[in-house]
């Protein structure tokens, strides 16, 4: 598979604030790629560079085989973008905005537009000034999804949607993937990313700290184990790769690095296992692990520019 987006060593500063500091990102054609990071980590800045709205200070970025700064019109015909903060023209109706954005992108499919309006339960006759944040987001989503494009770039597209609409959004993205479209989904709703994404990139302070399939990432994570044993286990706490070991009567709790899992089991068996529960790491735990590691560093580095 070829890369729909390939970014390497991307750098961007706003004045003295460094927003991107050598960011790498690779999105394969046809995949849904999760783009994770806390507020201010540089997600939106990256996306704006990919859209040619900002110019990178260094590094390289390629979108659909083109240069995002130079090949604006030819690239933008092939992609659709949903911003995180959707502001619309107050006097235009939602329907007008959808049509306008679709036409400027090179046309949209009226049947798909009608179907999406129904699924997202949006009244297209209302003026934009009367829309809530969620409804404005629906306008941008419908405009993007109704266009026949190869690449969707979505920047926190569901932050204002209710759970019902969030479910509709997930269905739509799953269909887009079926249709062979590539999606870059920036989000910090981890359940959404877990449900939709083939691969994720986690970024922090303008740098990619982790990238791969969820399974890959899990492999590097820790499994939590809770066991009831007949006698206190011996020597488990000292094993390499075991963390947060705790014993409470006959109940043992521990976390173990996934690649050391088989080292723990003999010790448990020797202690006489009556019940065993093991849980693979959630994305949330993976995510938090990346952001908790070094609180001192987090506190001293300047916050990267906001979106």
């Amino acid at each position, binding site marked *: 598979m070829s890369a729909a987006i390939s970014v390497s060593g991307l750098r961007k500063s706003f004045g003295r604030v460094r927003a991107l500091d050598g960011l790498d990102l690779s999105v394969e054609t046809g995949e849904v790629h999760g783009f994770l990071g806390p507020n201010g980590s540089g997600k939106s800045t990256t996306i704006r560079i990919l859209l040619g709205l900002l110019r990178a200070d260094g590094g390289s970025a390629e979108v659909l085989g083109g240069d995002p700064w130079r090949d604006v*019109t030819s690239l933008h015909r092939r992609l659709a973008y949903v911003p995180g903060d959707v*502001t619309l023209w107050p006097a235009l*109706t939602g*329907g007008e905005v959808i049509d306008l954005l679709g036409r*400027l*992108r090179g046309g949209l499919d009226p049947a798909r537009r009608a179907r999406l309006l129904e699924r997202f339960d949006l009244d297209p006759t209302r003026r934009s*000034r009367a829309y809530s944040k969620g409804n404005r987001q629906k306008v*941008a989503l419908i405009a993007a999804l109704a266009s026949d494009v190869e690449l969707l770039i979505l920047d926190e597209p569901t932050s204002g949607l209710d759970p019902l609409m969030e479910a509709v959004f997930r269905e739509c993205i799953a269909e887009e993937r079926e249709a062979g479209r590539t999606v870059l989904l920036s989000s910090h709703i981890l359940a959404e990313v877990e449900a939709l994404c083939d691969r994720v990139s986690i970024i922090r302070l303008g740098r990619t700290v982790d990238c791969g399939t969820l399974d890959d990432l899990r492999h590097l994570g820790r499994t939590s184990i809770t066991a009831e044993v007949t006698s206190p286990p011996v020597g488990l706490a000292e094993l390499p790769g075991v963390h947060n070991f705790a014993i409470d009567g006959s109940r043992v709790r521990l976390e173990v690095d996934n690649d050391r899992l088989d080292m723990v089991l003999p010790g448990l068996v020797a202690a006489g296992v009556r019940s065993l529960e093991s849980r693979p790491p959630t994305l949330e735990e993976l995510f938090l692990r990346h952001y908790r590691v070094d609180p001192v560093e987090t506190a001293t580095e300047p916050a990267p520019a906001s979106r």
Partner: protein
Amino acid sequence: MSSLTGTVALVRLALRQGRVRLAVWLYASVGLVVTTAVSFARLYPTIAGRREFATGVADNPAFNALYGHLLAPTSIGAMTMWRIGVNGAALTGLLSVLLVVRYTRAEEETGRLELLGSGVVGRRAPLTAALLVALVANLVIGVLLAAGMIGLGTGVPGSAALGLAFVTTGWLFGAVAAVTAQLTETARAANGLAIGVLGFSVVLRGAGDSGGGLSWLSWLSPAAWPEELHAYAGERWWVLGLPLVATAVLLASAYSLVARRDLGAGLLPVRPGPAQAAPSLRSPLALAWRLQRGVLMGWTVALLLFGAIFGSLAAGIGDLLRSSSQLMDAINRLGGGQRALVDAFIAAVMGILAAGAAAYALQAALRLRTEETDLRAEPLLATAVTRTRWAWSHTVFAMFGSAVILAAGGLAAGVAHGLRTHDATQVLRLLGAALVQLPAVWVVAGIAVALFGMLPRQVVACWGFLVGFLLLGQLGPVLQLSQWVMDLSPFTHVPRVPGGAFTMTPLIGLAAAAAVLTAAGFAGFRRRDAGV
């Protein structure tokens, strides 16, 4: 009285936010009236001179429509009331409208009131606070005006009547705004509705005062009531009852409307719009037309009216000055005569038209920046629209919208002047005189585009350029500034037509400068980050 809880806090908030605006309004109103009185006293020190002046204006229907009737020809107070009092009171009404809407509907629309409303603020408190501020501001203006006029020795009863005319008109239109702010959902619409009422009143008064048996119309117009009060001309105090009763009725309805509606909602139904975009809405230019057409039409109508009014006055300008025989002698000695005087007047009117067109051009060009900072440009630039194409879509309005406005003003002035002088050639002559201003207006617009492209954060400085240019034009000759300073303003280079010699060279130079500025702005915008 729990529905009024928090009123005091809101009044203080309003004063804190609007203190500069309020102070400017106060000084400007009082200054305008008092300096008018002082200059009348200086220009016409003798009773005979005043009588001469009065006969010059009495039978001129244009003056009567514009200012009302001069009711007591020998009184400086009455002259002031005629020249500035009637329209000044209407202006006070306008400012009261803006003030009341600003602290009621505008706050509600932006959601700031919601933030306050969730605190300890009663449901009538915001309206009450806005009205209190308007009430006191108008009262202070009235007291200062009356004191100033008494200080000039124009008589106590007349001065009190003049002050009260301002106060009651301000209150009345503040109350009109209190009602319209309940009816509509947006501040723009609330202002529009209230200013529409005011504008209609002014037109009605003008029609009533222009003679022809329509004088009964004046009684229907709140803008005519200050005149009907007959300040300095045997005051009819009972006339004050009209605005006071009207104010009371309007306030009662505003309060009953407040009780009946939801926060954020209006009472006039919001009409649903089209579910699909018209086939024509398919380009940045089409979108810009949707966003800019209202402002363009507003300016066009305003300059059309301005041109028509001052065009119709031009021929009569001599009548006004003939009363001052010394002034006429001076002009005749300069070799101008009546014709040159009229031409000079028209050239001055064209200068004002140009200032208006330049202000519009800046407003249109600055839309680029607000669209960008409000993040509305971003989704457009993420489609197959190039930066240049998008930037053009609004720049076109700055450049050609201003041409439309100038043409409207010039054409209206030409038709009006042509009708009064029975000379059809004036139409094209004045249209030309208006369009000659266009290259200078383009330079001002070009400055805005250049700033937008290269120093986007400082783009508002373009207003400073315009004000500076206009001040140079006004004060330069008075201060006897050297020519190179005067040459900094593009308006200095516009040929003084009609009357003066017409040369093409400076116009080409101005147009070239505008083109360079615009091109520099576009080049800058293509190279810089968008949205920062």
